[in-house]
């Protein structure tokens, strides 16, 4: 049994949980729109089918990665995490700075409902099929990023199951809240979560890319926390700097 430091396991589980929270909220909005308009049976079928495909991906890809030499795996996953994490962080910075609009779950719910209503007018006979497929696509596409994060933060240090548990916990949390409120979860601070996940993934990417190249980070796992603090600080400072010109123009 490989013992894993909590300084690595904690951020890995946290990253999987928070990233899943963001993606599940997005998928939930579409599933709710489909279920409300077209009934829950085809929606549930589409959702379960997509979850099955995603679970299959983790089950198939996870053990396969265990066969790749650790340094090579850490390097490849580290580079992918850097690209993915910095991409999220860039978008979160632009949203925080007001350059691109925040994600609006109410607007997505309305748009998805309108699209389904339009489809209802055109193809009455295959409505259940369309509803199931819409739910399937939403859960599959949003879930792909979760699968990547679970595999990426989990595979390098034998944390696949804890990371998957973090993702599952997020799914259950959103499902429970969704059942209670029964409307789009518009009040989730999505950009703050995305900012946090982008920071964590970039920090993991930096750490593992370096480890893969044979770099001995000072403080070993503690370096992860330093990287996260640096990405957070630079991200917040950049968002703040990009926000200023708009305020001056507004005055």
């Amino acid at each position, binding site marked *: 049994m490989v013992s894993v430091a909590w300084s690595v396991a904690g951020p890995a589980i946290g990253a999987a949980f928070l990233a899943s929270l963001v993606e599940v909220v997005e998928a939930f909005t579409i599933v709710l729109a489909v279920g409300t308009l077209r009934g829950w049976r085809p929606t549930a079928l589409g959702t379960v089918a997509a979850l099955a495909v995603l679970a299959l991906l983790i089950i198939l890809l996870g053990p396969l990665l265990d066969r790749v030499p650790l340094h090579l795996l850490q390097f490849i996953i580290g580079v992918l995490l850097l690209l993915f994490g910095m991409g999220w*962080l*860039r978008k979160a910075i632009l949203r925080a700075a007001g350059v691109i609009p925040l994600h609006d779950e109410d607007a997505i719910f309305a748009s998805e409902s309108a699209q389904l209503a339009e489809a209802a007018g055109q193809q009455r006979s295959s409505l259940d099929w369309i509803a199931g497929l819409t739910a399937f696509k939403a859960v599959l596409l949003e879930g792909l990023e979760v699968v990547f994060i679970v595999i990426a933060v989990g595979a390098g240090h034998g944390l696949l199951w804890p990371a998957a548990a973090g993702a599952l916990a997020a799914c259950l949390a959103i499902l429970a809240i969704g059942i209670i409120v029964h409307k789009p979860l518009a009040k989730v601070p999505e950009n703050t979560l995305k900012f946090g996940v982008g920071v964590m993934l970039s920090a993991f990417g930096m750490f593992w890319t370096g480890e893969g190249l044979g770099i001995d980070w000072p403080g070993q796992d503690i370096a992860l926390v330093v990287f996260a603090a640096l990405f957070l600080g630079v991200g917040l400072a950049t968002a703040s700097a990009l926000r200023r010109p708009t305020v001056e123009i507004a005055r």
Partner: protein
Amino acid sequence: MSIIVEVAKELLGMFLADARLTTTTLVLVAIVAGLVLALRVETLLGGGVLLLGCLATLVEAAAREARRRRCS
């Protein structure tokens, strides 16, 4: 078939949202790999180049996109 195309687009989009950010990061990693593995430079120096380079790349990518959107 359209689902497969959308899945492929989603997968590509995960890493290629900003082509210049992706390219610069990959070039930076290649430079650091060259420094550490081929030229046998002190690994910590390579790590520093990677860290500072990534932070600079991130700031440049966000600033460039903000400029582009405000100009258009």
